[in-house]
């Protein structure tokens, strides 16, 4: 009995020594819970407020000012643009610069005073139903809140109607949002993990020494290593898209050719992250841990699981750096909104920039010798 205890202690001590030697693992054991605490505690907010809203007013005046004031008082809306035409309003919603367009029609004040219950049109970007549902619910209070002060007599019977138009996803189906998003999540996970393991495996098994001794240049090795994963990535895309179409009836309004091209930028960005990790990790376990360390914030801060606009500025700033954030906007934009290149370009160039930086780091860090 005592001898058994001694042996258990021997194994325990050995494990502790090994754990202490593997600094990265040790760091991850502490780092991941801290990261989760910070993200879940401070960054995530399922009830986003102050959503960017465009105002298309064809009836300027006191009532307009009352409505705007009521919208902003609700806490959910923040007027960021005043547009003069429907076309510009469309563009702002398509690119995702605003989540709402409030249209005050011609003669609104006149009709209101005549008691004809005019309609206030609110278009909501419903690609992510969770992000806008609370704001939409708050609109029920709008007429009362807008007119209580100036025209209290009218408040009893709702003086105007609020017509909410859920764009892109009229039924508010979560699958429309999640399934295209999954595409990005799956690709992030597999691309980074596979490439980081691919190079680390060479180091771990000792084949790297042989590879370095042969006349093959680092860039050639890296390119050769990632090409199979690009192909695998496209196979995954095909599988998810077919499932999205057949099982979830996700609309595909935009060009799949454009999506294929945008995917390449996203794949390259992720592959470079994987390669960079593989130049740091000393074994495959570390490569997996680093992948997880990147994957976790990608999932939580990109707008995949929680509304991007609900996060504080610092978390949004981190999110803007992550490739998944931009890819989600691209894929949702192309599939659900039917966006073309002009609308997605603001999300494509950050991906390309990220990929460029990550590839530079990966190539610079790749060992040319065993030093």
């Amino acid at each position, binding site marked *: 009995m005592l001898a058994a205890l001694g042996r258990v202690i021997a194994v325990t001590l050995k494990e502790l020594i090994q754990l202490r030697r593997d600094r990265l693992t040790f760091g991850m054991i502490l780092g991941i819970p801290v990261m989760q605490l910070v993200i879940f505690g401070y960054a995530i907010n399922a009830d986003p407020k102050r959503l960017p809203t465009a105002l298309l007013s064809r009836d300027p005046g006191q009532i307009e000012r009352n409505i705007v004031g009521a919208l902003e008082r609700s806490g959910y809306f923040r007027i960021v643009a005043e547009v003069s035409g429907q076309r510009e309003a469309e563009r702002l919603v398509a690119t995702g610069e605003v989540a709402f367009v409030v249209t005050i029609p011609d003669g609104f004040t006149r009709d209101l005073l005549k008691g004809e219950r005019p309609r206030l049109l609110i278009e909501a970007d419903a690609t992510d139903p969770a992000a806008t549902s609370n704001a939409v619910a708050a609109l029920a209070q709008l007429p009362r809140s807008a007119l209580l002060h100036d025209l209290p007599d009218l408040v009893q019977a709702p003086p105007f109607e609020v017509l909410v138009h859920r764009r892109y996803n009229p039924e508010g189906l979560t699958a429309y949002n999640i399934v295209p998003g999954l595409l990005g999540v799956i690709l992030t996970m597999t691309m980074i993990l596979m490439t980081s393991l691919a190079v680390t495996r060479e180091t771990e098994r000792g084949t790297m020494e042989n590879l370095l001794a042969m*006349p093959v240049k680092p860039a050639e090795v890296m390119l050769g290593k990632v090409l199979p994963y690009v192909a695998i990535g496209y196979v995954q895309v095909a599988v998810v898209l077919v499932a999205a179409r057949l099982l979830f009836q996700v609309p595909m309004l935009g060009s799949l050719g454009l999506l294929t091209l945008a995917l390449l930028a996203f794949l390259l960005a992720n592959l470079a992250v994987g390669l960079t990790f593989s130049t740091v990790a000393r074994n495959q376990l570390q490569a997996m841990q680093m992948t997880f360390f990147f994957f976790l914030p990608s999932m939580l801060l990109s707008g995949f699981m929680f509304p991007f606009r609900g996060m504080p500025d610092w978390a949004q700033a981190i999110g803007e750096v992550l490739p998944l954030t931009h890819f989600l906007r691209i894929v949702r934009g192309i599939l659900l909104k039917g966006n073309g290149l002009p609308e997605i370009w603001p999300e494509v160039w950050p991906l390309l920039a990220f990929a460029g930086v990550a590839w530079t780091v990966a190539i610079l860090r790749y060992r040319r010798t065993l030093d």
Partner: protein
Amino acid sequence: MTAPLAIDVEGLTKRFGPRTVVDGIALKVPAREVWGFLGPNGSGKTTTIRMLCGLLRPDAGRGTCLGLDIVNEAEAIKLQVGYMTQRFSFYEDLTVEENLSFVARLYGLPKRRRTVEETLERVGLAGRRAQLAGSLSGGWKQRLALAACMMHTPKLLLLDEPTAGVDPQARREFWEQIHALARDGVTVLVSTHYMDEAERCDRIAYIAYGKLLATGTVAEVIAGARLSTWVATGPGRDDVARTLAGVPGIGTAVFGPSLHVSSPDAEALRRAIQPVLGNPRLAWREAAPSLEDVFIHLISGAPRP
């Protein structure tokens, strides 16, 4: 006219942190010779070989391999040098043929299929072409590795302990191959721990604690040490070994039933063994020192870091 040098380096130095692993090594290996590279574990043999083929950047020193600068022309050297790593470093999850094919592609060999085919036939791996490299025995792995680093017909072969863990029969065949290659004009530098292999080399270089201690033919290295050696045979050899172990300047080594006692100072050696010469359980005779006696002497005399 002197023969061109396949390896010509001087002052070669490599430090890993505070440790100097290779310390100012100069090596001049003429083309077409087979050189044995000897020394205890951790003496810097692998590091030296890695610097020669561009895998490590020397901290000091300069030189050439096949006339190409080892620092600036490492890429060109890789095309003409075959390097066999100490640890098997081909892909265990590829078959024999797939491994060779991969190497042939990296070197851009013309007529790849035929080259691979010929290589398989020549080294006797044709029957195992479809076997995963990881499932080969040590001897076959070594053959595969040698075949792979020979396929691009290098002019210089750097072999890092190629016969470690290989059975005597395979070792003998391996050395026959090395000599056949040398006859064809290939220069070979092979590191080893085996004395019999050292004696198969044209010349040897002996390194300990990062310093080159001796070079030359086996006879030259032995003569250069100027050792006197006595051999004691008999059941009392262990007692004598213990008695002489602490005596400065004297090296002892047990070979089967015999004890070798050596020293560069013949007089001191005679004085040291005087008390035990009369031991009735031992027969003493003076003998020519062996290469191993010389190495034991060289290590014991080398300054330890």
